[in-house]
């Protein structure tokens, strides 16, 4: 894995998708050139000391012009606090320190296995780059995507235009199934013959990740979960972002999700 770099990335575009969500495009050729699906960047939302720490974001898209090398990445951000508000309000030409790529990526499965991605809310973030990697493998992709309401579901055309089958769910029932995204996932898992290969990928709130891991286990399917813990440094220095996980000997430890993750095998994570 190439060493991370810290770039003072210029904002090339900021698309506000709703009152809370935005996609920020950052000029970062080195990161764009080496980032893999599931990896993240640490972004400093201010040059001052308040807020002090950087925030982790999955690399959402790797952007390149036809025939050229990747020149930018984007992040999918949901406005929840001071830092994400600053990113929401950013304008073209602003610059943010952007450190990455960091963390362990997803492993893309190849046919005949299918790839089922399960996203909750802003947990959609790692699945655009994963879609690109899976398409290079020629893998059939399905996206189970849940949000509070239809206004919280984004980039549907983007995924559909890349041949990704969509299974949507909203908690208010305004689009797709009414309720949690794990309900259509469970139906689909039950319907799929055990002999047909399958890899589950999930990113979203921890209750959703736990539910996906449980479903995967019950249906004897492997899963890869992208976790999100409160992170201090992203480099393994601070030991903030720990998660309980089994090591190769089956012993359970707190491991740093920035180094050992953020992507874990679902079977390895021990939920509190």
């Amino acid at each position: 894995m190439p060493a991370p770099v810290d770039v003072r990335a210029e904002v090339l575009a900021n698309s506000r998708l709703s009152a809370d969500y935005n996609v920020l495009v950052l000029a970062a050729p080195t990161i764009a050139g080496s980032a893999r699906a599931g990896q993240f960047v640490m972004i400093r939302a201010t040059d001052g000391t308040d807020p002090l720490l950087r925030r982790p974001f999955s690399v959402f898209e790797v952007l390149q012009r036809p025939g050229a090398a990747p020149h930018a990445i984007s992040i999918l951000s949901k406005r929840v606090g001071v830092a994400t508000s600053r990113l929401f309000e950013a304008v073209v030409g602003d610059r943010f320190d952007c450190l990455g790529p960091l963390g362990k990526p997803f492993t893309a499965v190849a046919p005949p296995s299918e790839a089922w991605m399960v996203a909750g809310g802003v947990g959609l973030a790692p699945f655009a780059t994963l879609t690109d990697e899976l398409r290079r493998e020629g893998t059939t992709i399905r996206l189970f995507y849940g949000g509070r309401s239809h206004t919280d579901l984004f980039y549907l055309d983007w995924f559909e235009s890349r041949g990704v089958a969509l299974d949507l769910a909203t908690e208010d029932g305004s689009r797709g199934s009414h309720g949690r995204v794990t309900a259509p996932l469970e139906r689909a898992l039950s319907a799929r013959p055990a002999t047909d290969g399958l890899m589950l990928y999930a990113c979203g709130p921890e209750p959703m990740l736990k539910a996906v891991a449980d479903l995967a286990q019950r249906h004897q399917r492997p899963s890869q979960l992208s976790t999100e813990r409160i992170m201090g440094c992203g480099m393994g220095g601070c030991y903030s972002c720990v998660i309980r996980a089994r090591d190769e000997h089956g012993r359970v430890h707190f491991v740093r999700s920035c180094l050992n993750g953020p992507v874990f095998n679902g079977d390895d994570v021990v939920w509190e």
Partner: protein
Amino acid sequence: MKADLRVRIGTLELKNPIIPASGCFGYGLEYAEVVDLASLGAIAVKGLFLAEREGHPPPRVVETPSGMLNAIGLQGIGVHRFVREKMPELRRLGAVVIVNICGSSLDEYVELARILSDVDGVAALELNISCPNIKEGGIQFGCDLGSTHAVVSAVRNATRLPLIPKLTPNVTSVASFAKAAEDAGADAVSLVNTFLAMVIDVETRRPKLSNVMGGLSGPAIRPIAVRMVYDCARAVHIPVIGMGGITSARDALEFMIAGATAVQVGTACFVDPFIWPKLLSGIEEYLERHGIERVADLVGTLRINGA
């Protein structure tokens, strides 16, 4: 001509006064691909007990204005795994390793010192008697003058390595603890560890940290830390290693003028893992601009009352 950045901590000469602080730099190897560890004065590795430790459940950190609280609970791999798994690579990379040791008893400190005294590449011991986040050991030695003297004396008798007790600011007079450490044979003292603090979520009325309390670090504490370093440097004759919210060369210089022979940098490294060469070049630039040939000549040169 480039300024001379060397400083001396007891028998240990550092090539420059910049040291990543314990608990903020892992075991050093985490950062080996973004900084040349040999370019640093030394590195203070994460605090070690004899045994492995799990640490506290998350959430372990919370941000505050210009600062952060942590309650990691000294998660660590224990001294034996450290010596076996980390020291060979640290030696190979040329790091000057200050091992931070923590004990839940006086005997544990002594045993750790004995073990590490025989390990090639261990340059000094930092005695953690100041972690505010664990119940057993650590700070119980650092909040009582008699206990501080006792633990430093006991470890002094067990090792010839330079000994650096790390002091807590959570006492009435840090300087009296620096003096107790000096009297017991310490080669230097380092300060400050974090300030015991709390953040409450008023909506849920729950503490933001699983441990309820944690240690405050970052720029928010810097002026208090500078004052405490100043107090200690005037109270003792051994070197003081200053820390607390350093984010720039200016901040490092402030501690040195207050009396610190060297400085440690912790929280700022979380924000900028590439900070080290910036700190060093900033100090060099300052020395050149002020016509100071040796950084050691800057230590404790605060001018007061028209001096």
